[in-house]
């Protein structure tokens, strides 16, 4: 029973920790490129900004997936619920 709890907690922490590295790096590069192209062509600013936001949202969703997985592990964990139901039934 404790091993389920330990595994869930450790996995939740690791998921969100490693899952936010990639998107953060990607978003940094995207914004850097957008800034340099804004400096080159300021009159295309609205197109660049809009495309930047759409791209950032797509990159961000990877981090959101990892966040959702860790939230499920902490708050809506089916294995933990099953164990709790068993202990309560005893």
């Amino acid at each position: 029973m404790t091993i389920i709890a330990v595994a869930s907690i450790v996995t939740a922490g690791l998921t969100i920790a490693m899952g936010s590295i990639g998107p953060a790096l990607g978003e940094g590069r995207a914004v850097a490129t957008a800034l340099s192209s804004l400096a080159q062509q300021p009159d295309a600013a609205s197109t660049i900004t809009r495309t930047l936001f759409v791209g950032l949202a797509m990159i961000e969703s990877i981090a959101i997936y990892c966040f959702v997985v860790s939230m499920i592990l902490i708050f809506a964990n089916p294995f933990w619920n099953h164990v709790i139901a068993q202990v309560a039934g005893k």
Partner: protein
Amino acid sequence: MHLSPDEMIFWQYGLLKLNGTIVFTWALMLVLTLGSKLITRNLSTGLERSRWQNLLEIVVSAIERQIKDVGLRHPRKYLPFLGTLFLFIAMANLGTIIPGYEPPTGSLSTTAALALCVFVAVPLFGIADLGLRRYLKSYTEPTLLMLPFNIISELSRTLALAVRLFGNMMSGVMIIGILLTITPFIFPIVMTVLGLLTGMVQAYIFSILAAVYIAAATHTRGSDTRKSDTRGSETDLRPAPTP
């Protein structure tokens, strides 16, 4: 601390549950419909107009310009659907200002429903614009080998839309909840402001992505792809030409 407004039960009768999501969604629909009805009661086409009508006109023409910039010709055709998406999600997220309110988009049911609407609307618009055969043929472009991948990409786009909106909203609510137990008084207010900002951005992203998907579905190979209008704030106020 609960995960979503689904867990706030206002009233229960056997199997029927009136939870927070339903109540807040209906309240939102009531506010939006009644507000628009009241404002558009006496529309004026002259230079004298009420400030509420001015506000609505600004909102509608801004959305129309955005739809046009995405590459959709005749934005009036898509304005009801995309405008409703944006206004509903924006108002749902903006209402966090009101105490005791939780955005219904923080529940996976609402976001899944909205994503399903987009999932159904994209083929509908595509078939309406291109005809059934041509639209179905676009799934086999560039080669027939891409057919399963195109179908999978449709499904995963829908899932991504739902989870993205849900994750952003739920995380905002949860961070505020956690911070209220750790450092109350000032810091949760800062996080609420951040939550409002991400809410607005997510509403914009959701509708722009829906517009981009519709544009991809109604774009035919060989038809001219108009470059985005960089001439500024010219809005096409003529009604959409009937085919």
